[in-house]
C-alpha cells in the first residue's frame, strides 16, 4: 500500500484493495481541495512532505487503528506536491464487520494523520499570492467559535 504519492490518488484501486469478504461496512474519507479558503479563491495546493517520517507515522497510526478497533482493513494515502481543485489530498479507507467501527476508525486515522504527519499545505490563490496553511482546518474551526 502506498502511504504517500506524487500521482493522483487512485480511489478505485484503494477501494478494491479494501474489499474484504468478511467486512460488511466500508467507509472512505476523501479530503479534497476546495476552490476557496478563508473567502479567497484557490487555484491549487502544494503539499510539502518529509516522506521518511510521514510514512513511518502514517504506518504507525494505521497499525494502532487495528489495535483500537475491530478492523479487517485500514488504508491511508496522502498526496504530495501540486494538487488541483476537487482532487483528493488524502484518502482513508476502513473496513469492518460493523459500520460503527468503520466510521470511528476512519475518523481516528484522519484526525491523527492531519495532526501528526509532517506534511504541510501551501495554498496558491487566484490572485497570484500563496500562503502556508495554518495547522489543520479543524483547529481553525474551533478558533472560529
Amino acid at each position, binding site marked *: 500500500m502506498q502511504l504517500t504519492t506524487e500521482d493522483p490518488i487512485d480511489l478505485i484501486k484503494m477501494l478494491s484493495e479494501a474489499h474484504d469478504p468478511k467486512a460488511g461496512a466500508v467507509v472512505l474519507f476523501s479530503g479534497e481541495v476546495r476552490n476557496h479558503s478563508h473567502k479567497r479563491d484557490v487555484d491549487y495546493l502544494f503539499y510539502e512532505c518529509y516522506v521518511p517520517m510521514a510514512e513511518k507515522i502514517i504506518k504507525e497510526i494505521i497499525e494502532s487503528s487495528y489495535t483500537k478497533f475491530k478492523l479487517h482493513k485500514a488504508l491511508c494515502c496522502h498526496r504530495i506536491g501540486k494538487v488541483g481543485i476537487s482532487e483528493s489530498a488524502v484518502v482513508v479507507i476502513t473496513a469492518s464487520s460493523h459500520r460503527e467501527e468503520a466510521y470511528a476508525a476512519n475518523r481516528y486515522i484522519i484526525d491523527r494523520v492531519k*495532526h501528526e504527519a509532517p506534511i504541510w499545505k501551501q495554498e496558491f490563490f487566484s490572485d497570484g499570492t500563496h500562503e502556508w496553511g495554518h495547522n489543520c482546518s479543524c483547529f481553525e474551526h474551533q478558533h472560529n467559535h
Partner: protein
Amino acid sequence: MKIKVQVFASLKDYLDPQFYLELQEGATANEVRYRLLTEYPMAESILRKSKLAVNDCFVEGSYTLKDNEHILIIPPSSGG
C-alpha cells in the same frame, strides 16, 4: 561539534532548508531552537510551535545532541 539542521515548510521562508551549526559538546535540541530564535526573530512563533526530531524520530527539547547528528525542525502539520 557540528550539527546538521533541516527545516521545512514556512520555516524555509526565513531559514535555509539545510545548514550546519557549530555547537558546544552536550548541547540539547532546545538549544538549537533558541539559537535559531535569536538569529531569526521573524520565525519566532513558528519555531516555538515546531517539534524537533533526530534520526527521523521526535525528541524532547532536553535531548542531548551528538556530533554530526541531524536535527529536524518540524512546523505544525497542515496535511489533509
